[in-house]
């Protein structure tokens, strides 16, 4: 091969490598940017007076005097609106039957929209669910609801060969000639006074527990549950994994049994996580009965089994990477095998072992399938440390899935879901960062 071709090959290889890294970086950006921008929305948003009312009622936070004056300002506007409703109802009562029927349905829709925007109407019974007790707490959602009030969404089924198309018609036009027609411009004009949006940094999203299935409040139970599960898994898997790695590297002789164990370990690393979840249910809960039903303990054990192969493998590699000369030096000084392992080999292998451990910790924090059947519930309060043996817990990974697919009003609380995703990503990234820092510090200490 001549020099020119060789150089060309070299360069194209470099370009290929660089290019793939750039592509990876861009992909990461494509994933991270929406997660971060949407996730931040759960913490920083324009909160309405309803948000502050909710905070005061549910969490006893906020300035009561200021809240009262805000509510009073809003109330004057609301009274006007409710007056319009009363007037229209009186007008409705005086209409003939046919017109009444025509308006009643439309009017019910207007009422529903107003309830979503401002909370229960004066003549309503006190709602049982917290989500119905308050109007829109977030300005971005309030704008959506305002649009719902102004425009009615309809479907165009005229062409049977195509999918129906949606179009909007003005609700005000439907009430032309009645007194209610004044309501629509009035609400639009006074929406700021009605809801009084203000930029809010809602730190409680991290530290509060949720109110009415994540409609309001925060995700602390989920964060705590995630930490409990991940740390619990580590508690079981890390010592066990390191000991197993020591056995494989220092004690195991070449035998059929040991090669069997090794391949079992590799196989275990490739088992789908849902299988671990079902295994955890049947083995830990149904057979061993570590708890009555789902519990943090059962979930941690299941996660531990899932991350064990990774920990063993990384610890094994870290131990094998320790120069043989250290071992020789130690043994040559009259050290026992066990002492050599504890005082020389493990300290030298520690950075590698820890890296593997923390990466596994991150994985345990993010896994969903193993905890579905063993530990996770969709709604719950934060549990105490004493309850981990018997209580299930909400957890970020499971609740993200739950909010995305099973929650009855998922569309209403997308921001909570985004916030959870961001929190989980942050936790995992912080864990990985700490692993990198820890590793760097220990390596530096070892290298002098």
């Amino acid at each position, binding site marked *: 091969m001549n020099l020119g071709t060789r150089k060309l090959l070299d360069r194209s290889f470099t370009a290929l490598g660089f290019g793939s890294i750039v592509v990876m970086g861009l992909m990461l950006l494509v994933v991270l940017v929406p997660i971060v921008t949407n996730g931040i929305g759960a913490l920083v948003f324009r909160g309405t007076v309803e948000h502050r009312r909710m905070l005061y009622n549910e969490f006893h936070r906020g300035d009561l005097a200021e809240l009262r004056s805000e509510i009073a300002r809003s109330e004057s506007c609301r009274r006007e609106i409710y007056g319009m409703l009363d007037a229209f109802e009186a007008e409705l009562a005086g209409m003939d039957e046919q017109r009444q029927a025509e308006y009643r349905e439309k009017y019910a829709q207007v009422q529903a929209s107003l309830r979503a925007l401002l909370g229960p109407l004066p003549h309503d019974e006190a709602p049982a669910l917290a989500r119905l007790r308050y109007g829109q707490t977030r300005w971005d959602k309030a704008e959506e609801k305002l649009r719902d009030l102004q425009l009615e969404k309809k479907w165009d089924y005229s062409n049977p060969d195509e999918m129906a198309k949606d179009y909007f018609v003005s609700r005000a036009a439907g009430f032309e000639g009645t007194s209610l027609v004044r309501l629509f411009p009035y609400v639009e004009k006074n929406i700021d006074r009605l809801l009084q949006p203000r930029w809010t940094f809602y730190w409680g999203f991290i530290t509060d527990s949720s109110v009415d299935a994540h409609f309001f409040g925060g995700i602390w139970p989920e964060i705590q549950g995630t930490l409990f599960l991940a740390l619990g898994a580590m508690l079981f898997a890390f010592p066990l994994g390191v000991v197993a790695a020591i056995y494989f590297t220092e004690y195991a*002789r*070449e035998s059929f049994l040991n090669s069997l164990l090794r391949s079992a370990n590799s196989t275990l690393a490739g088992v789908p996580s849902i299988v671990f979840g079902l295994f955890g249910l049947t083995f830990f809960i149904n057979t061993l009965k570590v708890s009555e039903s789902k519990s943090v303990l059962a979930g941690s054990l299941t996660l531990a089994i899932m991350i064990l192969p990774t920990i063993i493998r990384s610890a094994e590699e870290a131990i094998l990477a320790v*120069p043989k*000369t*250290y*071992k*020789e*030096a*130690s*043994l*040559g*000084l*009259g*050290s*026992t095998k066990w*002492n050599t392992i504890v*005082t*020389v080999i493990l*300290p*030298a292998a520690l950075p590698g072992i820890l890296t593997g451990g923390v990466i596994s910790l991150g994985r345990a924090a993010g896994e969903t399938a193993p905890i579905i059947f063993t530990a996770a519930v969709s709604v719950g309060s934060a549990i105490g440390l004493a309850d981990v043996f018997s209580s299930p817990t909400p957890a970020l990974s499971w609740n993200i899935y739950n909010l995305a697919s099973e929650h009855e009003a998922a569309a209403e609380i997308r921001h909570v879901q985004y916030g959870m995703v961001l929190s989980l990503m942050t936790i995992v990234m912080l864990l990985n960062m700490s692993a990198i820092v820890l590793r760097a510090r220990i390596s530096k*200490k*070892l*290298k*002098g």
Partner: protein
Amino acid sequence: MSASPDTKQTSAVTVRDIYLPPERKKVSGGGVPHVSAKNFSIYYGDFEAVKKVSADILSKYVTAIIGPSGCGKSTFLRSINRMNDLIPNCHTTGSLMFDSQDVYGKFTDEVLLRKKIGMVFQKPNPFPKSIFDNIAYGPRLHGIRDKKTLAGIVEKSLRKAALWDEVCDRLDKNALGMSGGQQQRLCFARTLAVEPEILLLDEPTSALDPKATAKIEDLIQELRGSYTIMIVTHNMQQASRISDSTMFFYEGVLVEHASTAQLFTNPKDQMTEDYITGRFS
């Protein structure tokens, strides 16, 4: 001493026939067999790496082991403190005695043995710990916890290894920050700290530059007379400079074992002569 049929007659060098050139002093209280091998063979699986060696290593003198690569000299050296135990499938036949103790005896504690028979390796291998901790590692292993005693041992060992003056103000620094020659002398000090009787040196200067090598050689001269020293080396000038007796191995066989002055000036065996004159290697 009985010679086996497939090995050449090798003579055990005793103090009576060790010929010391005028510049090398006789060692008082030395010259008794400290390690003696009898028909000692080492196998890696079926391969006989060291073949029926019979020899006496004299106490407090320096014994050099020379021979071409793969001749079994390192294997022989490492068998004396049972470092070969680390290699799977390695086993021995014949007998190897250390004082009156059978090195490969059923009831021999290899950990205790290695305390008495220290070793310095080809590549400097300090632990990734501070200089102090490196040297205190051995004494701590053997139960010395008192800080003052440890500090005393560290200083004494470093002085013996001629390293004290260079490192006394940075004992808490990581040993891996030292130069290669210093690291190797640290390894000497670390070995000396457990007060061994025998020092096994496995090509201790092959990874060092000439200046550091000279220092190590000086150190070996210093230690001669206090310890029984066995050194494997590829450098024949080194062997002739620092040793009192020399063993020449070839393909696992101990070809000749004589006092250094004799072996290098008047070898009995043709192969030895060929090797030391560089006709083959």
